[in-house]
């Protein structure tokens, strides 16, 4: 859901830029110096996600997975997504330059929101079904948030975009379902293989205990 340059009005562009600037500054502050490899690798993993096409009906969608990004990274989602979208624009020609702030804010804001809404609850639930349900909620909710923000960016830029804004929302309902199911499954797996990924990424935890490599090999 990359908006291109030229469509949005000045105030919308300025607002998106300001939100992204503030979110990135705040996110960077909370990245410890030793955490950079970790956030960098997760950012690369999410960049990969945007290249994966998943069949849906007769067509296919590419993943955003910002719910999962939010749960794992919190405020760090802003710098991670800024880097990912910047690289997409520079090397693949997606999105634009002036509109970059709006595009990052549209994806990162719901991610951060999901983080604060669901992270504590996620710590309390243990059962497979409950974790899957949380993932479903996080995945579908964050895409819905992004779609609403994209629609709002368009509607805020001119009345003539209103029908397109509505169309964006309704055509993305299948995407919400798929991202929800995917995020649910991914959470169930992470919860079983590396539960600390969901809780401990916040602390700088320099040396982790040996990874459960065997358990990891078994499921993929």
């Amino acid at each position, binding site marked *: 859901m990359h908006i291109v340059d030229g469509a949005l009005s000045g105030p919308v562009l300025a607002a998106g830029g300001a939100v992204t600037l503030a979110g990135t500054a705040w996110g960077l502050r909370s990245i410890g110096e030793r955490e950079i490899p970790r956030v960098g690798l997760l950012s690369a993993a999410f960049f990969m996600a945007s290249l994966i096409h998943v069949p849906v009906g007769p067509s296919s969608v590419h993943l955003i997975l910002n719910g*999962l990004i939010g749960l794992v990274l919190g405020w760090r989602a802003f710098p991670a997504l800024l880097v990912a979208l910047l690289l997409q624009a*520079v090397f*693949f020609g997606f999105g634009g330059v002036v509109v970059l702030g709006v595009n990052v804010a549209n994806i990162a804001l719901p991610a951060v929101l999901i983080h604060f809404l669901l992270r504590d609850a996620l710590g309390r639930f243990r059962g497979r079904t409950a974790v899957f349900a949380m993932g479903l909620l996080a995945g579908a909710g964050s895409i819905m948030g992004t779609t609403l923000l994209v629609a709002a960016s368009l509607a805020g830029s001119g009345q003539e975009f209103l029908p397109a804004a509505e169309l964006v929302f309704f055509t993305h309902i299948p995407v919400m379902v798929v991202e929800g*199911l995917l995020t649910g499954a991914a959470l169930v797996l992470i919860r079983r293989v590396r539960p600390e990924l969901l809780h401990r990424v916040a602390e700088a935890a320099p040396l982790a205990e040996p990874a459960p490599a065997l358990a990891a090999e078994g499921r993929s």
Partner: protein
Amino acid sequence: MSHALGVSRPRGLEALPEGHWLQRIDPRTRIVAAMAYAFLLVACRDLRVLGIGLGIGVGLMLAARLPLGPTLRRTLGVDLFIVMLLLLLPFTTPGQVWFQWGPLTATWDGLWRGVEIGLKAAGVILMLLVLVGTMDATRLGHGLHRLGVAPKLIHLLLFTVRYMGVLRREFLRLRQAMRARGFVPRSDLHTWTSYGYLFGMLLVRSLERSERVLDAMRCRGFDGRFHLLDSLRLGQADWAFGTVFAAGLILLGGLEWAGG
């Protein structure tokens, strides 16, 4: 079976070789030029000015001898929803009637608005691909660093670039393991949860890798700071390119201002 591999996006343009004239121009000059161009083009309204602006981008692309096919494909490739957006515009913008089709009325104003957005979007992306997309990521990082972007963000960028390729291979390995067990992507619950496991596994593995990377870096004396060593100097080529490019932008701005 276009998604048999799961990855069907085009790969990035190759960075230009060292001796190319564009590579003799400092990354900072190129980044600033592409940004100035983007802001100016987005601010313009006159279609003729936008056309000339896009022409400058095409001219630079030709002068740099970039491969035409891949460059243009990336310039024109947009999300489906942008295509819908532009196609809807003539029918949703009030103004002078262009044609009527059943209950729908298309207007010239909407058509020109769509053309305006298309020209801006294409121009900005083309210039970005030509000036910035042709440098390797290290150069981009160093350039942004010297332009005052926060060091942590630069490190994050360099790490992301470094491990994108590694994770892509990891992803393809996992994907191949699934295919070996007879997995065929379909539009059903099984496929979507399998992709969820696949991506969850990718995250877990990248996290494990990041711990090994950090350990290895600490063995080599990493104390949380990177020292970016570069030898960026603004030279004659930069002044020459900068002057010509700025003259072009001033001309565009002048035309827009005089025409409006």
